[in-house]
């Protein structure tokens, strides 16, 4: 199957293409140099914006906590029923869309890859079940390790290699992609009902290790294992006034581990971690983006995704159990909790972000400030931490805020003036151009994930392509931000693996694309040691057998295994 996308206005930042009219050739799911014009299907993309398929590196769309959230909120689905039409299966939205709807919505927006950001290894078969059922996007999942007993115990004894071997074993056994840390140490203590740990040097009860040591240890592990994606961390004190100090401390804690200018730590949904003010004093709540970005701009080992919020009714969900309890206490909304033996926890609370709320409106500004203050967008990814900050369908709105000062000002005018004075946003003139948008929604996240065939349109890349019905040369994003929103919400064409899957408001294909996972190769003696340790102790740790915990590769509908030569 061949395809020619003719004369589109192409932005391909990884290959230095900045809005040039050019043709793109596709054959057998890949971008190629030239296609045979007589056999190929031709798309006339004249005056249309052509980008690599969108990449969402931090989103919650599949697995146990997402499904519990769906179960918790029929009211969320009532307002957004999704009809069956042709190959398009039915489903429901709004903030926690069902699996088919999730795939379709990503496709509608021109997104072709999404990584599920927090997954308990014990329930990874559930995650794989839903990934197996999510159509039209490539995907993968980050298992969580920051409160894992084996990790905390081996690190507290200084056994980095053993910890790395354990993580290699788990990633390979359950088909995970990266190391995720959520609120290190706190979730274990939350299992005894205790709150978030704000002191990075406090010992985690019963485990003799501090949050800082967990972060450092796991950053070393990610390096030892040569993982394609560096350590992905949701650090301590999410959502609290004054938490930017802990965030800075987390980043500084691994600085000395940099050896060769490499990326070392990815700060997840940074907006939720960039607040000034005094702990527990909500009146002192203010933006902390300036000091955070001053640090990140100077320190190229840190990357982040935005965690932007929007004013809507959405659903928070995270492995950060103690945070969700706090949020329940504040909102008195429905609250779910699901602790996972040996490994982690999770919580869910619905929330409505309101424009006239002092705290919410500052949060809104903080997310945008972080991106707009960045001096290196190659370390930034757009996210709403779907659905924590807003449902994924709000990405086009976030894009318009980044591209248009006027769009931002419209909102700024409506938020409380007391909140406005606690933010910088009004004083920032920067407006992203199409290339910069292409970086933070495609090229940068693909690069941060270490996926060479993604996020660009060079020869050999996967033919994941989005075509939007706007002419970047004829449009003024500052003024026409509404057109930007509309165009990015509903692409003209979305092409996945060289097939047109979405066109003119219709889903025209329904298939299951790849699931990425890593298979780190470690020394045989190390592997055997870990394997025998786990076989000996598994019944003590868990309530399932080790053989039933592992997931065979064949369980994945379309497995994309990445074999890794590690330093072990």
């Amino acid at each position: 199957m061949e395809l020619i996308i003719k004369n589109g206005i192409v932005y391909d930042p990884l290959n230095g293409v900045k809005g040039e009219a050019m043709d793109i050739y596709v054959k057998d799911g890949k971008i190629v140099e030239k296609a045979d014009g007589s056999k190929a299907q031709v798309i006339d993309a004249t005056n249309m914006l052509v980008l690599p398929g969108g990449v969402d590196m931090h989103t919650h769309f599949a697995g146990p906590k997402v499904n519990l959230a769906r179960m918790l909120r029929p009211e969320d689905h009532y307002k957004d029923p999704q009809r069956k039409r042709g190959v398009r299966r039915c489903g429901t939205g709004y903030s926690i869309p069902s699996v088919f709807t999730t795939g379709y919505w990503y496709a509608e927006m021109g997104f072709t890859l999404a990584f599920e950001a927090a997954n308990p290894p014990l329930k990874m078969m559930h995650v794989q079940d839903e990934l197996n059922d999510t159509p039209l996007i490539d995907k993968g999942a980050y298992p969580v390790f920051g409160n894992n007993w084996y990790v905390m115990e081996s690190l507290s004894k200084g056994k980095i290699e053993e910890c790395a071997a354990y993580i290699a074993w788990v990633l390979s056994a359950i088909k995970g992609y990266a190391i995720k840390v959520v609120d290190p140490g706190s979730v274990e203590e939350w299992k005894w009902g205790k709150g978030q740990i704000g002191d990075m040097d406090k010992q985690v009860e019963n485990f003799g290790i501090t949050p800082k040591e967990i972060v450092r240890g796991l950053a070393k592990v990610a390096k030892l294992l040569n993982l394609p994606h560096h350590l992905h961390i949701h650090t301590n004190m999410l959502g609290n006034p004054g938490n930017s100090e802990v965030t800075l401390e987390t980043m500084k804690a691994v600085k000395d581990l940099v050896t060769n200018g490499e990326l070392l730590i990815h700060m997840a949904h940074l907006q939720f971690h960039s607040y000034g003010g005094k702990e527990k004093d909500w009146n002192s709540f203010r933006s902390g983006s300036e000091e955070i970005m001053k640090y990140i701009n100077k320190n190229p080992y840190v990357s982040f995704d935005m965690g932007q919020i929007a004013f809507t009714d959405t659903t928070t969900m995270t492995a950060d159990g103690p945070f969700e309890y706090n949020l329940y206490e504040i909102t008195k909304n429905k609250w779910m909790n699901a602790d996972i033996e040996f490994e982690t926890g999770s919580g869910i609370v619905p929330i409505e972000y309101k424009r006239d709320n002092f705290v919410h409106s500052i949060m809104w500004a903080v997310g945008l400030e972080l991106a707009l203050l960045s001096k290196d967008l190659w370390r930034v990814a757009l996210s709403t931490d779907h659905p924590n900050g807003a449902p994924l369908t709000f990405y086009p709105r976030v894009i318009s805020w980044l591209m248009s000062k006027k769009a931002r000002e419209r909102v700024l005018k409506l938020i409380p003036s007391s909140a406005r004075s606690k933010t910088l946003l009004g004083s920032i003139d920067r407006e992203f151009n199409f290339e910069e948008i292409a970086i933070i929604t495609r090229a940068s996240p693909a690069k941060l994930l270490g996926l060479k065939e993604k996020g660009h349109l060079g020869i050999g890349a996967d033919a994941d392509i989005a075509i939007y019905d706007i002419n970047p040369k004829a449009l003024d994003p500052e003024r026409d931000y509404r057109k930007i929103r509309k165009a990015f919400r509903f692409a003209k064409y979305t092409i996945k693996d060289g097939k047109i899957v979405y066109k003119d408001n219709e889903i025209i294909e329904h298939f299951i694309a790849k699931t990425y996972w890593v298979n780190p190769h470690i020394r045989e003696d190390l592997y055997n040691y870990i394997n025998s340790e786990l076989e000996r102790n598994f019944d003590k740790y868990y309530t399932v057998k080790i053989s039933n915990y592992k997931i065979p590769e064949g369980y994945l509908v379309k497995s994309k295994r990445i074999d890794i030569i590690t330093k072990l």
Partner: protein
Amino acid sequence: MKEYRDILCPVCGCLCDDIEVNVENNSIVKVQNACAMGASKFLNFSKERLKNPLMRKNGELVPCSLNEAIDHISRALVKAEFPVIYGFALSSCEAIKVGIELAEEIGAVIDNQTTVCHGPGVQGLQDIGQVSCTLGEVKHRADLIIYWGSNPQDAHPRHFERYSLLPEGRFRGGKKDRKLVVVDVRKTATARMADFYIRIEQGKDFELISALRALLRFEDIEQEQVAGIPKEKVEELAEMMRSCEYGVIFFGQGLTQTIGKDRNGDNLFALVRDLNKFTKFLVMPIRGHYNVTGSNEVLTWQTGFPFGVDLSKGYPWYNPGDTTVVDIFRRGENDLTLVVGSDPLAHLPRRATMHILEHPLFTIDPSMSLTAMASNVVIPSAFYGLEAEGTAYRMDGVALPLKKIVEPPEGILPDEEILRRILEKVKEIRGK
């Protein structure tokens, strides 16, 4: 002889995964680690099984070919205006997916056994939220274990041993470090093991929970008795709950299928939520069939709703009391019923079952049941976890692999395959 280890037990929601099975000449000759219920299933499942598809001709069920059966069911499904597909708690998740696709294709209501067991608990979850955990958390940490309207000693025999009272966890050394409380109307086998047994008056669960919540707010109780229990005993229970380090309530149908139903679920979940002001406290339903949890999970991730999903409008709709099968049957609205691995004629209220019989009734089931006997067409299916593999979800939402350890009799297919053939036939007929 083949020896299998780490086999899942396809009986109750405990989904024990440590069963050892010996197979000789395609028949199970020895079972280890299973409870009596489990062992009996492994050893006897094949004895009273259906071997042939059956079709009613001149009032009698007579053997027919599988193709004939599938063709007949498919044609009826296409013709029906408001069909209902019901069951799946004894199917694999893969089969449930096909069931949903079929329901979507023909515009049916699809429902599972939750509707008659833990539905009210799910509604409580939807009203309040559920503070819960996996079973291993209980094993490692719990020092107070409460069974409320559930009797695991009889219905989930290994629940004590594997998940709650008896196992040695990281922070608890087994029974000596835990207190067992049982709230029940009868002194059941479980209640007889309790350190503290509360005999509650039938239908007074809501009252007792409300009193406990009041005590947690440090309010006084004015009556001498609550739910037939002396006030002092209720106060003692409240104090036990407040002062434990890690408490958990396992509730059963004694709570969800008594007066109050979903209001009981609401109140219980609110009680547990409120307890977290003082200590760590969790709550979990004790689910019956081995994959009833999976049927909720799959339906939720595909449609957004856990049971009672009406797909007749072309999009999923859920309104318990309206879109749930008991209510549809009772109102006599459906004009066809397809049952997958369940026996509604034996288990549903009479007023509901009356109407099932007025219209075409089809059953897919490994064994003969009351419903199968009354059906127009019966297709025998393979036993999951014995003759077919697939995925099932334990009561705490841990997904586990059901395995195939013996071959089904010739021509007998798993639900997934039977439903897929029906779906294909339906599409073929509708395509014409």
